[in-house]
């Protein structure tokens, strides 16, 4: 299990990285934390002829709070940096809670959020969390920049809106409104494994304690991270009673398309989605109180 040969470039600026990508096109891959790409290369399922290592690019590795309260995560910010940031834990507890379920500390030392989202594994926790948080992807190419909402970014298994000459430069996560509770829950075979089913829930209450906004997003539930907008909408205006939540969780099961794996049958995954949605919504409702 040794990787096929490649040319390695370690540019120091975004422009240089983008120029390399433009020059080499499909043959080139960006290398961020390497925690998905290198295993694939070791198995030789990925054999890029050119690797553009982003780890020495200046300016991609910072975590910044923007004026509007959003968090801007540079493309090479490592999980380790995010999970150790007290402000993230306080202001974006959903991200912190879900991060703890991603792999193991040794993987999080090097793995990056940007690499994870670019990889777009539908079983991964992070895309679902980005969907629930309404994050935006900042994509750059030599000729300019565009922003794509999370819901438009993930197009299929390992497929994103990134064009061949584009780089994911940063992820922008808007702040949580007040009176919002979130929860992330998953069932994996073992700690650190990709989940058999996972769910991110977000609930906001109005002044009267009723549900003003609800979001649900699942991982391992289809070809992309799967939102359950119908189920979520059914909660708006309710008092978030056990019955309200149970009905929404049941409804969410119809909005996902679990594909099954060696670990779990689609029927079991769907069952889990209902169980976890109910539990996560209950938790989020408590936290929003």
């Amino acid at each position, binding site marked *: *299990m*040794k*990787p*096929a*040969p*490649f*040319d*390695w470039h*370690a540019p120091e600026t975004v422009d240089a990285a983008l120029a390399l990508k433009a020059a080499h096109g499909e043959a080139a891959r960006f290398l961020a934390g*390497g*925690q998905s790409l*290198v*295993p694939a*290369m*070791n*198995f030789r399922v990925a054999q890029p002829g050119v*690797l553009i*290592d982003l*780890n020495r690019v200046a300016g991609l590795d910072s975590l910044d709070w923007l004026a509007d309260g959003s968090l801007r995560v540079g493309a090479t910010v490592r999980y*380790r940096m995010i999970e150790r940031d007290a402000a993230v834990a306080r202001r974006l507890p959903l991200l912190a809670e879900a991060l703890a379920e991603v*792999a*193991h*500390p*040794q*993987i999080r*030392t*090097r793995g990056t959020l940007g690499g994870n989202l670019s990889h777009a594994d539908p079983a991964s926790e992070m895309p679902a969390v980005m969907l629930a948080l309404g994050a935006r992807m900042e994509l750059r190419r030599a000729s300019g920049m565009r922003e794509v909402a999370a819901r438009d970014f993930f197009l299929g298994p390992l497929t994103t809106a990134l064009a061949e000459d584009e780089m994911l430069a940063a992820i922008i996560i808007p702040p949580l409104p007040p009176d919002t509770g979130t929860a992330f829950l998953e069932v994996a075979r*073992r*700690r*650190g494994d990709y989940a058999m089913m996972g769910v991110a829930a977000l609930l906001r209450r109005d002044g009267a304690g009723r549900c003003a906004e609800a979001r649900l997003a699942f991982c391992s539930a289809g070809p992309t991270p799967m939102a359950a907008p119908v189920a979520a909408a059914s909660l708006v205006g309710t008092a978030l009673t056990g019955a309200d939540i149970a009905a929404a969780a049941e409804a969410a099961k119809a909005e996902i398309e679990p594909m099954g794996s060696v670990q779990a049958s689609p029927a079991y995954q769907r069952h889990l989605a209902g169980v976890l949605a109910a539990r996560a919504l209950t938790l989020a409702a408590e936290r929003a109180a």
Partner: protein
Amino acid sequence: MKVRVTVNGVAHERDVEPRLLLSDFIRHEIGLTGTHVGCEHGVCGACTILWDGAPARACLAFAVQAEGHDIRTVESLAQAPARLNALQQAFQDSHALQCGYCTPGILMTMTAFLAENPKPTEDEVRHALSGNLCRCTGYQHIVDAVLLAAERGA
């Protein structure tokens, strides 16, 4: 291409292909064979080293990427030849290894863990260990060893 990597405080310069895995560089280029390889896809943890102080998989990085970073391996733990450090001693005292193949990776993971969490609970130790597979011990004695090392103030 030329690469200069600092392992256990010593700089090693070698001419390598960019594709050379850091694990192979450590083991076969500079001959520090204490770092083991069990899967080359990041799961087993046998190759865990410290990368600027944080535990990381040597099988998921290229040697050329390590230039300018501080890499530590199991060979750096004992302060003197033929001695054991406190964590290693606790491993022997608790019978925390059988074949010993997983052990170097576990020692490196636990070294970083104890540095941040010097008085862990059993549950915390088990969580911290969950990224390292051991096929021989059933983990119990490893957990005991880490708790013992913590108690002794390792």
